[in-house]
């Protein structure tokens, strides 16, 4: 129970920090904000790595396969998201 409550605390506080930080982003940058935050939501890559990379006879193959597919999706999200955001933001910066 303690763990759950601690995690919930972190969750709620992070949402509040998010509200605070993101309200300051001007509408002009909303598209890069979305693609950038999308890249951040690719953090599921952490879980995917663990699921895909764990080995041992006791570890179910199905979990490994699902983990690998998850890893592909999450990596697309992370790599694609950060790259495309960078591409967009550099257009805003020049001149």
């Amino acid at each position, binding site marked *: 129970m303690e763990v759950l409550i601690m995690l919930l605390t972190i*969750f709620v506080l992070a949402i509040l920090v998010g509200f605070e930080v993101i309200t300051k982003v*001007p509408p002009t940058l*909303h598209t890069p*904000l979305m693609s*950038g935050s999308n890249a951040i939501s690719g953090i599921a890559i952490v*879980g995917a790595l663990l699921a895909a990379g764990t080995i041992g006879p006791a570890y179910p193959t199905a979990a490994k396969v699902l983990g*690998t597919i998850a890893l592909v999706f999450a990596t697309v999200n992370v790599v694609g998201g950060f790259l495309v955001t960078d*591409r967009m933001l550099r257009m805003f910066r020049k001149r």
Partner: protein
Amino acid sequence: MDAQHLVNLAYLVAAVLFIFDLKWMAHPRTAVRGNRAGALGMLIAVIATLCSPAFQEYSTAGIGWTYILIGLGVGAAIGAFAALRIKMTSMPELVGLFNGFGGAASILVAAAAIMAAVSSDYFTLRQGPLAADDEARILQMQIATVVTALIGSVTLFGSFVAFGKLAEFLAVKWKLHTWQKLVKYGFMAAVIGGGVAYVATFGFGLYTAVVLVSAVLMCVVLNAKSDSFPGLKALKMVSLLGSLLLCVIVVLHADMREDVLVTIGKPPLIQDFSAFWALVAVAGLLGVCLTFSIGGADMPVVIALLNSYSGLAAAATGFVINNNVLIISGALVGASGIILTNIMCKAMNRSLANVMFAKLGPTSDTPDAEEVYKNVKVTSADEIAMMLETCERVVIVPGYGMAVAQAQHAVRDFASLIHEKYGCEVEYSVHPVAGRMPGHMNVLLAEANVPYEQLKEMDETNGTIEQADMVLVVGANDVVNPVARTDPTSAIAGMPIIDVDRARTVVVIKRSLSPGFAGIPNPLFAMDNALMFFNDGKDAFVQIIEAIKES
């Protein structure tokens, strides 16, 4: 301090970098740095994970690099290819698609985690009865898995529909009514079916009977007409939450029966994941239904909402695998999406429920288009060029039509030409919901090298628009429709608009007099100070540029 502590500290660093990423997004000067900080955070999180002792939980042999390298390699190749090749006009599709991938990754990670946790050998490895802590942990994991499946699947399937609509290969227009019915009855069937399945699995007893009866009751309530008696709406909300809870119970117990939890070492009855996948399917259907009837100008709301869901799904996955960095990052993205959704809804003066479920269209007393457009005046490139000679201040209002016509470069060339030749001050007034996603127009104009300072928000330009000598509206319609201000019965009543009708001259560049997404005529086109230039957005500016050069 052991290795896991170090890994967790690295996760903390990553989370802090993500927060700075979003903080630095507040200004174009710092935004590039912000995005790179986020990427660095992600790199740190990945490296830390690869050093994590969690890999050793099942075997001390180390890490199975094969799958990891395959996953990372394939993903990185697809991601990089998509990111570098995509056209700026197609950005909404890409973001929509990526939202879906986030949802998919979350579901699969949660599924893999719960599979690993309930695999029989895992329990036999730990002899003896479970401690209370472990039970709480398992319960948390199960609830989080169900939540992940729900949100993640809505995100995944909703995003693919949204992607299909944006990429225009899903142009089917079902009547909204059909979908609502389908959702309603499908949902009912799922709830009752779940209840029956539950009873079938665990036998008829007091507890299971209560579950079944409440399932049926909730369906009846959900199906009742909303105005039957006061308070029914609240009751419906309760029922909806209740049925979600019910599906949690059903799915949980199908996965893991209590007697399995306490009698460790026995062959478990918990290898059955059909309930989990059924839940994913039902939630996916819900996602499809939610997005299917939404189109056109409402798309920004959907994209923002799905963005939020993809974050929340990641956060829920964090609860499944007990991981702080997932929870923090997911919460940040969730918050960001909620804020954007809210901004989009406000910019249309509609509630989220109205955008998702109501049909926007002409009301019975919407004036007839022919009547409204009786006095429309048509202009030409030469005439516009002539008028521009005396203009000091020009405002350009872009809409989705500019993206369709790929006119942003021509617009930009036009703006620099009149600035050089006539000394016009040019600025761009961008409505928050112009385009198919939040900030869509700004990205296109930035691609065409329009300086950031010239990109103004609606409120900024509305204050000074009366001093504008000429406003050029390119590919926008509803967001400049003065009916929003004047007619309280109109479909777009109260929606904040760019008050272009208050400028000295308005030139509307549009291919025809066809209505915008709201389906209502725009009296602006027939106003005394308005001129129509019927043309494709790009050709129009090319012609005007030529006319100016010749004069």
